[in-house]
């Protein structure tokens, strides 16, 4: 079975909302139910459950999902760190090795008391006390200073490479332009470069519109082997390969240059396992938990270090308010984390890429799209993947 590739055969999501009115367990259950129904596989056939749980435990354990969906035949359960493509790769490898045949893979986020004002004021949103975020305060002994590492990464990039807020505005505006056509996105109002430049600073130079906002929500996919996938009604989307890299200095809090180094190592690793090269890919989904991360992923994919800003400038289509790399490759067609919110933590890109490669993206459809690259995460936690239309 190890010669086979793995395919995504079902996708599902909950609503994405600032205040969903339900708990994280219900959000995950809704997403997983939708993904199984979309796949056409019976619930008795699901025998693997793999999810990102560490940010929002304990209701998001695989065992919770097994119980909530009443899955009687699960023989493989596993968890993964955020962001979401780590769970996707764990699930895919479980299918690849035969540990399970049909795996649900899920990711959810929730506005807990320690991540949002809504959460803080709501006694039904008290954090379970297991909040985990890569790079945020793990073993740090220093007691003061902003843990928003990405603001220092952004400032260093501006100082070293001459990038400006106008350059980062292109990322935020491009994503929002995609989101105007995406009913899943929480932020759908069109955005201008001027809006970006006038946005309040969070941690100068990082402004409000550089950040993915806390949003409730969950996404799930169902995976199986490419062979089994051919028997199903929906067009499978094949996972070409994964890439991941943890370079020596991989803590962005202390090494602001680490994110760029890690992204480059990740992309090199990713494409070393494919016959495709980055410019061959039809749609690009650079991770955008913060806009600076998108800048670094785009550089890792397409340019030398530090040349992202001029690359974005030449890719900018003013009349459409969006990026088209090499005059053809759209970026974050759904709006990214910046528009769908932190609920998705990169899994929104997987969902959107599958819709695009199936030809189900409606008004957002990129004609003839056959391949997509999805990058995820930052220095300490990163995983990227290439998806192909079958």
């Amino acid at each position, binding site marked *: 079975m190890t010669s086979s590739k793995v395919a995504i055969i079902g996708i599902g999501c909950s609503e994405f909302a600032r*205040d969903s009115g*339900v*708990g994280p367990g*219900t959000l995950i259950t*809704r997403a997983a139910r939708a993904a199984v129904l979309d796949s056409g596989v019976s619930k008795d056939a699901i025998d693997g459950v793999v999810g990102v749980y560490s940010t929002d435990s304990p209701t998001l354990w695989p065992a919770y999902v097994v119980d909530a*969906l*009443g899955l009687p035949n699960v023989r493989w359960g596993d968890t993964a760190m955020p962001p979401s493509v780590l769970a996707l790769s764990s699930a895919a490898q479980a299918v690849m090795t035969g540990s399970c045949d049909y795996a649900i893979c899920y990711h959810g986020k929730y506005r807990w008391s320690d991540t949002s004002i809504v959460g803080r004021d709501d006694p039904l949103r008290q*954090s379970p006390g297991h909040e985990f975020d890569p790079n945020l305060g793990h073993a740090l002994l220093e007691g003061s200073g902003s843990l928003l590492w990405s603001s220092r990464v952004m400032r260093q990039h501006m100082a070293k490479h001459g990038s400006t807020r106008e350059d980062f505005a292109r990322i935020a505006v491009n994503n929002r332009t995609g989101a105007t056509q995406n009913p899943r996105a929480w932020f759908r109002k069109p955005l201008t470069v001027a809006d970006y430049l006038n946005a309040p600073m969070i941690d100068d130079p990082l402004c409000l519109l550089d950040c993915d906002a806390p949003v409730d929500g969950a996404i799930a996919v169902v995976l199986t082997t490419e062979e089994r996938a051919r028997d199903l009604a929906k067009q499978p989307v094949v996972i070409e390969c994964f890439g991941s890299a943890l370079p020596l200095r991989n803590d962005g809090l202390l090494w602001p240059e680490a994110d760029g180094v890690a992204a480059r190592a990740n992309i090199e690793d990713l494409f070393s396992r494919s016959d495709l090269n980055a410019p061959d890919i039809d749609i690009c989904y650079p991770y955008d938990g913060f806009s600076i991360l998108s800048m670094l992923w785009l550089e890792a994919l397409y340019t030398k270090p530090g040349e992202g800003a001029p690359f974005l400038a030449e890719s900018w289509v003013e009349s459409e308010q969006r990026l088209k790399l090499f005059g053809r490759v759209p970026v974050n067609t759904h709006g990214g984390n910046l528009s769908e919110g932190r609920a998705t933590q990169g899994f929104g890109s997987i969902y959107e890429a599958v819709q695009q490669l199936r030809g189900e993206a409606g008004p957002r459809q990129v004609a003839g799209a056959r391949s997509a690259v999805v990058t995820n995460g930052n220095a300490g936690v990163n995983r990227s993947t290439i998806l192909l239309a079958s």
Partner: protein
Amino acid sequence: MFYSRVGVKISTNHLGSGARMAQINHDTAPVWQAWQRRELGLSRCQACQTWIHLPKLICPTCWSDDVAVEVADGRGHVVAYSLPRSMSGSTEPVVTAVVELDNADGVRLLARLLRCLPGDVTDGMAVELAWAEDAGVMTPAFAPIGSAA
């Protein structure tokens, strides 16, 4: 004291631990609220009649969203029990039991057994609903049938 969006009154003093607070969330609050009224509310699917516990908004059996809180009668029997060491200072014997309800198929609750000595508990022992109040918070407990004063 907090009043949440759904109108549930929660005293932080009584629910000091983060773990306890996290258990009472938007999925579980309706059941918890029923318990505060001394009613054994449980999630139940209105489409296929499955009783569901722990509380959920989607039925694990038929995947319907039509799940409501219904009140169960609280008759049950002991499935398993243990005798935890009591908190320091307390001499009251404690029995912790898994109780399976007789009239709510598949539902098991973890609860204290009241009005019986540890030596008197047997597996399969028939029990009925009692309530344990701890600093104003009501949780289901059970006691041998007919043991009420």
